């Protein structure tokens, strides 16, 4: 490995990600487009968070509670940062199309796999820095009041190790994904496409589970091994360095430091080997079963879509199951459900006599999975078109028709998920059939509101260029989309929330108000989406 090459490459990757352009004609501009922004934003984030925690939260907690919270944060900081770097990579780095990555300049320059892995890891840490500063600042504020700054300093230092492990794990996942998608090249049939997608999703889920500390703790507790068993969970070894030192066991801390470094070396070697073996994703050529040219609009026609809209919907559904870069969109909801299942075993879920409180976390996570699935599909609905969006711009397809087709492309895959969720509520929470039927329109209107909101955000922040490390949506758009999704769900369901928490309004009125509010939000957001979409007609792709 050549460190100089690796650092130069890391700089190029950072520039590429910072300067991502929405289209061909766009040019990088503004403070947010400069790589230096991250370096400036991180200390500011750290200082503000630390000051806020010190002044507000630190003073409002009991001293004993405060010391316990500060202790826990410092100990688990490395595990948190590991999780952060993984989630960041998962959400942003997997949307690069295989055919673009395969012709990257990096493939034909004399760069070794080790250089590439180090550069990629450094870039990930660089972009995770502002988020990590938030965590470090929070723990610093608490430690300052609790008088445990030494513990914080150690936790912060070991957090670098956590970040490295998280970023390397995702590097491994990327290499494995290249292998998985390449394995199906030349194979024929719809099953090959489905298997390829299932394998890609499984790789992300398995690697994310192995490196997710909360999931690992759940698995350990599932097997009744007791908390002592967390000592044998490798991803928690960096945290054990802090824990052992805090309890005065210097030798134990040294052992875990050694074990952590061994783990880091092993993951690094594995990442480099996987990267070297499966360097770039080969453009996959799959021979599909001969299809009949569509002679009618079929079910979509019955639903009121014209032939052009039906064609867009069919294309988008194919995109969802065929493209390697869509795997993370499907993997994240699977992970959310999996976390819920690990937290509440099926024996409890299926036990009708078990109290509802023991099942609410699982049900909440399942509902969240449906919303997350929809959020991702809607937010990326326009960006995933990439430069081929030109086909739609050049065609006689106005913004209104295109928007209706895109909304349907979002709601069609989410609707079965909603029905499964409702059925799950009926089985697990023993809800009567009449209430279940009432939940369906409620769920659908809420999902319509989220879809409309995210289509508007997705149109405004879509990235059509597939150059460099580009995503489907800008980082700024992803953050805004997440925040507005929470606001939309909260806003839509607020009448019901008021009924159940404060009893301000009766159930029937709350129900009708919720439906009405969701429809109003949908209408306003669809109008906003249309305005944004019309602006895209003037875009240079």
């Amino acid at each position: 490995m050549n460190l100089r090459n690796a650092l130069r490459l890391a700089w190029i990757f950072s520039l590429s990600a910072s300067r991502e352009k929405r289209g061909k004609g766009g040019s990088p501009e503004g403070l947010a487009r400069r790589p230096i922004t991250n370096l400036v934003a991180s200390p500011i984030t750290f200082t503000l968070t630390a000051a806020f925690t010190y002044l507000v939260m630190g003073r409002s907690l009991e001293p004993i509670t405060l010391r316990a919270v500060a202790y826990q944060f410092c100990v688990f900081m490395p595990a948190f940062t590991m999780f952060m770097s993984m989630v960041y990579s998962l959400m942003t780095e997997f949307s690069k199309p295989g055919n673009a990555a395969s012709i990257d300049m990096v493939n034909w320059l004399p760069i070794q796999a080790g250089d590439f892995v180090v550069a990629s890891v450094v870039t990930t840490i660089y972009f995770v820095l502002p988020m990590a500063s938030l965590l470090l600042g929070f723990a610093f504020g608490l430690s300052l009041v609790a008088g445990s700054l030494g513990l914080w300093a150690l936790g912060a230092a070991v957090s670098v190790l956590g970040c490295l492990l998280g970023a390397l794990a995702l590097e491994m996942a990327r290499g494995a994904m290249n292998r998985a998608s390449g394995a199906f090249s030349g194979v024929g049939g719809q099953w090959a496409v489905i298997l390829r997608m299932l394998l890609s999703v499984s790789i992300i889920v398995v690697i994310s589970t192995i490196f997710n500390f909360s999931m690992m703790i759940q698995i350990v507790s599932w097997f009744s091994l007791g908390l002592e068993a967390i000592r044998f969970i490798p991803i928690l070894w960096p945290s054990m360095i802090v824990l052992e030192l805090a309890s005065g066991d210097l030798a134990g801390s040294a052992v875990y430091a050694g074990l952590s470094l061994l783990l880091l070396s092993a993951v690094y070697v594995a990442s480099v080997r996987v990267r070297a073996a499966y360097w770039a994703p080969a453009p996959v050529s799959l021979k599909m079963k001969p299809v009949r040219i569509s002679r009618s609009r079929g079910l979509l026609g019955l639903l009121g879509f014209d032939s052009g809209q039906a064609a867009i919907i069919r294309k988008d559904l194919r995109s969802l199951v065929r493209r390697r870069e869509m795997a993370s969109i499907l993997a994240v909801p699977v992970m959310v459900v999996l976390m819920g299942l690990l937290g509440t075993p099926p024996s409890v879920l299926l036990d009708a006599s078990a109290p509802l409180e023991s099942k609410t976390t699982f049900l909440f996570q399942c509902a969240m999975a449906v919303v997350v699935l929809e959020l991702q599909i809607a937010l990326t609905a326009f960006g995933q078109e990439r430069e081929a969006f030109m086909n739609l711009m050049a065609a006689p397809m106005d913004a209104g028709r295109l928007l209706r087709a895109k909304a349907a492309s979002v709601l069609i895959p989410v609707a079965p998920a909603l029905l499964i969720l409702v059925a799950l509520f009926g089985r697990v929470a023993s809800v009567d059939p009449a209430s279940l039927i009432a939940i369906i329109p409620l769920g659908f209107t809420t999902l319509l509101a989220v879809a409309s909101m995210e289509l508007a955000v997705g149109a405004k922040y879509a990235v059509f260029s597939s150059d460099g490390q580009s995503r489907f949506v800008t980082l700024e758009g992803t953050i805004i989309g997440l925040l507005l999704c929470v606001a939309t769900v909260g806003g839509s369901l607020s009448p019901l929330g008021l009924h159940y928490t404060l009893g301000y309004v009766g159930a029937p009125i709350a129900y009708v108000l919720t439906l009405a509010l969701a429809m109003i939000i949908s209408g306003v957001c669809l109008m906003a989406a249309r305005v944004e979409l019309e602006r895209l007609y003037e875009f240079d792709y």
Partner: protein
Amino acid sequence: MDGEIAVSLKGVNRSFGGNRAVRDLDLEIKKGSIHGLLGPNGSGKSTTMKMVMGLLKPDSGAIDVYGKDPRRDPMGVKRIVGYVPETSRLYEYLTGLEYLDFIADVYGVEAEVKEERIYEFLEAFGLDGRENEMISGYSHGMKQKTALIGALIHRPRLLILDEPLGGLDPKSARIVKDILLRLSREGVTTIFSTHIMEIADALCDRISVLYDGEKIGEGSPKELREMAGSGSTLEEVFLLLTGADDVADIVDALMG
């Protein structure tokens, strides 16, 4: 060719930021003619084509396409235009057949004629037998052919082709040339840009030479050749007009 004007541009300007991509451009293209746009990279050819089909709005000036203003009636213009951008932009996760079916549906081609047309074109361009493969596995030339079929599938009245022959093998390039000539005889107007002078010479009824966003020359290939003196080639005319006739000196300087 009946002499009627299919496309006209009058005093058209378009800037990107501070960069004026097209300046005071006047063009008149007759129905059924093949009109070539020649010019070095960045001369405004692609911007002009995008403005004609309503993908970009001009800052000032007027454009008329078969009696329609692309600014006021972009959908009306798009319905009668077939467009191939300079780099083919296809949905790589679709098969060739699925892509063409998609394009035909988006343009509203009737279901009864769609299948026949698609297979006719696939056979003509030598893509039959490969139509059920994903486009991601196609070569550059195959992608270009697919994009061309996509532009022709709805029988447009105006074809706008940005470097349509790039990456095509000689046989396919010949097929495209023959198709354009046949379409011209049927009254279809074609605007196309190219860097290949032989093709421009052989195909175009008229040629406009663009340089730095301005039209610096126009005429039939014969008229342009005569401008540069008897016995000149179109390439010499092009180099003379665009001020790049000192290439020999540049090569000498580079090679020492």
